[in-house]
């Protein structure tokens, strides 16, 4: 099957064009040998089925980070290229166009955001642009679907460009100047309200308070939305499930099968958080406690993303993140890490150097609790008092800052500075938001469930075989002595390697004091990552740097945990 690659600068609406062209049958996969994710689908052009690949956004074929390198490799594999151009900033898209023309492959240009260009007083003479470039150019408005049919039509007739002259860098700039001079007419206009809002959110004096408010409002929305879903949707469902599973437990009778499926009964009743059966705790933790907040977190994230707020957040964060050996763009992987560490670590590849990626991946996996864990921390500690939750997060933020300051100084390599285009604010579209959120939530469900089941199975098998008691005894001196916890907490903390949310849940029946719980959940966050995060860290960093990261984790968790015991418990 022939392959069509969709190329373009970041923020030109490439992904929306992609979903317009492909419809429903889309798969998301990793580029062979890397963790750079891309989406791939099929389009029908005339009588032929083609593979359509959505390449990572890039300004030129001169790659500056790992995602861009993949985009460049995809061009080499392509039979046909569609370049999506933002009509409102024609000039800075043309460098990529000239580079793609040199590849001597059929090229079709989608001149996207055509409506926005007209509204903002930018006139592009299409006929002259076609004559200048010698390839089909289709004006499109991806959000409404305008021009998509014509784009498919153009793809079916596309042939390699008529003339391809290799230009030097300097000649390319001259050529770009000549093209824009010939085809572009700008009408002078005043600052719009939207631009004034944009300036206010970029400027430090107004932008930082607004940024703090946006983040607080986001977390409040995630929390309130999650609570609402739990209360109105999931609690009723699990109410019904309780009686169904209760009667199943009665029919099964005591024995290994019931212990694995339903788990322990308390006064003949299922206790969702503590029974530890696959169908009880194994379903309750991911679906009733974690999923609601995952849904709301990804909805809020998609909203901020589509609105165009994230590059502004990166600008505001740059002053701080620069001191931690990264730059402002690193706030995006860190923010994603609050949803789930896996996409957070994966997103760290948007940073240019190995040093920056190592620092970002380490800080995310060491100090950033994912939504699953946060939901459980609030669930376990929130009832004891909000001050305990605050204590956990204040400690984690402190460790994030101190560790970043240290890593900046000890990790060898370069920390290049921020260079980031800020797109204008755009009104998010409901359908696009919904699809994006759905894909991410599906990713969570598919990934979390197998590990939760495996975790519960392993805990039960260890418990019944008596191994659990032995492991507990070996490590108990450390957990009881050094961290000031009860010996039984050992198993829970070690289970964190499988699922952190499950591990937090396992702390509930141990009857520890609130301050002991604070130490336990903090150490659980700082220590070994869950196995899914472990796998992507290995892939992204390689075995050597993973070993360094793990060492940092163990040392940090041990030092911070010990310090907390002295300060909080006074022993």
């Amino acid at each position, binding site marked *: 099957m022939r392959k069509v690659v969709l190329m373009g600068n970041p923020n030109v609406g490439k992904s929306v064009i992609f979903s317009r062209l492909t419809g429903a049958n889309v798969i998301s996969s990793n580029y062979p040998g890397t963790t750079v994710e891309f989406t791939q689908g099929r389009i029908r052009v005339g009588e032929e089925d083609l593979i359509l690949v959505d390449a990572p956004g890039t*300004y*030129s074929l*001169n790659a*500056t980070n790992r995602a861009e390198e993949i985009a460049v490799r995809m061009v080499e594999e392509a039979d046909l290229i569609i370049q999506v151009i933002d009509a*409102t*900033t024609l*000039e*800075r898209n043309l*460098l*990529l166009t000239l580079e793609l023309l040199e590849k001597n492959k059929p090229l079709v240009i989608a001149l996207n955001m055509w409506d926005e260009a007209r509204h*903002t007083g930018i006139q592009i003479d299409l006929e002259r642009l076609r004559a200048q470039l010698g390839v089909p150019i289709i004006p499109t408005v991806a959000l409404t679907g305008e021009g998509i049919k014509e784009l498919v039509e153009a793809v079916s007739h596309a042939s390699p460009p008529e003339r391809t002259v290799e230009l030097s*860098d300097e000649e390319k*700039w001259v050529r770009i100047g000549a093209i824009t001079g010939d085809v572009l007419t700008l009408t002078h206009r005043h600052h719009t309200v939207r631009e004034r809002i*944009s*300036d206010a959110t*970029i*400027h*430090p004096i107004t*932008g930082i308070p607004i940024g703090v408010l946006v983040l607080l409002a986001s977390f409040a929305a995630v929390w309130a939305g999650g609570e609402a879903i739990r209360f109105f949707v999931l609690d009723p469902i699990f109410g019904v499930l309780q009686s169904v599973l209760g009667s199943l437990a009665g029919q099964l009778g005591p024995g290994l099968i019931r212990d694995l499926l339903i788990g322990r009964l308390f006064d003949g009743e299922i206790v969702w958080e503590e029974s530890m059966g696959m169908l009880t705790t194994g379903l309750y933790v991911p679906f009733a406690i974690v999923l609601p907040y995952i849904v709301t977190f990804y909805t809020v994230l998609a909203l901020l993303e589509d609105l165009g707020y994230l*590059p502004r957040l*990166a*600008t*505001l964060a*740059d*002053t701080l993140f*620069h001191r931690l050996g990264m*730059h*402002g763009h690193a706030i995006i992987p860190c923010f994603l890490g609050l949803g789930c560490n896996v996409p957070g670590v994966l997103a760290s590849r948007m940073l240019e150097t190995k040093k920056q990626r190592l620092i970002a991946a380490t800080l995310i996996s060491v100090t950033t609790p994912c939504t699953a864990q946060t939901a459980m921390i609030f669930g376990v500690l929130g009832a004891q008092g909000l001050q305990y939750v605050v204590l956990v997060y204040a400690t984690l933020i402190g460790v994030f800052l101190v560790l970043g300051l240290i890593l900046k100084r000890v990790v060898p390599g370069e920390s*290049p*500075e*921020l*260079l*980031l*285009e*800020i*797109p*204008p604010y755009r009104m998010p579209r409901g359908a696009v938001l919904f699809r994006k959120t759905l894909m991410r939530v599906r990713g969570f469900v598919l990934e979390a469930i197998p590990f939760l089941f495996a975790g519960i199975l392993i805990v039960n098998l260890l418990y019944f075989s008596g191994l659990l008691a032995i492991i507990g005894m070996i490590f108990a001196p450390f957990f009881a002595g050094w961290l000031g916890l009860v010996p039984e907490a050992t198993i829970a903390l070690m289970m964190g390697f499988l699922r952190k949310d499950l591990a937090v849940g396992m702390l509930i029946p141990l009857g520890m004091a609130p301050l002991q719980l604070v130490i336990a959940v903090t150490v659980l966050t700082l220590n070994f990552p869950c196995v899914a995060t472990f796998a992507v860290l290995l892939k992204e960093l390689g075995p050597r740097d993973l070993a360094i990261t793990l060492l940092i984790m163990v040392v940090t968790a041990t030092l911070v945990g010990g310090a907390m015991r002295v300060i909080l418990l006074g022993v």
Partner: protein
Amino acid sequence: MELPLVQLGEGERGVVTRVIGGVGMSYHLGALGIRGGKILTVVARHPFGGPVVIEIDGRAITIGRGIAARIWVEKK
């Protein structure tokens, strides 16, 4: 008067004269529209060594201090 971009105040305009740096750096800046002859306006300067935000071709771009020190402009 020619001066590095970091020294241009908020709201001031300048014409890019040269970029001091390797070929890769100039090419990447050029792709974003920052190259000789282009007019830019400083939108914001973040304190404590933070970045400079400029507007060029009607689009804002955030630039770290170190890079902004290597972009020279003729103040208008």
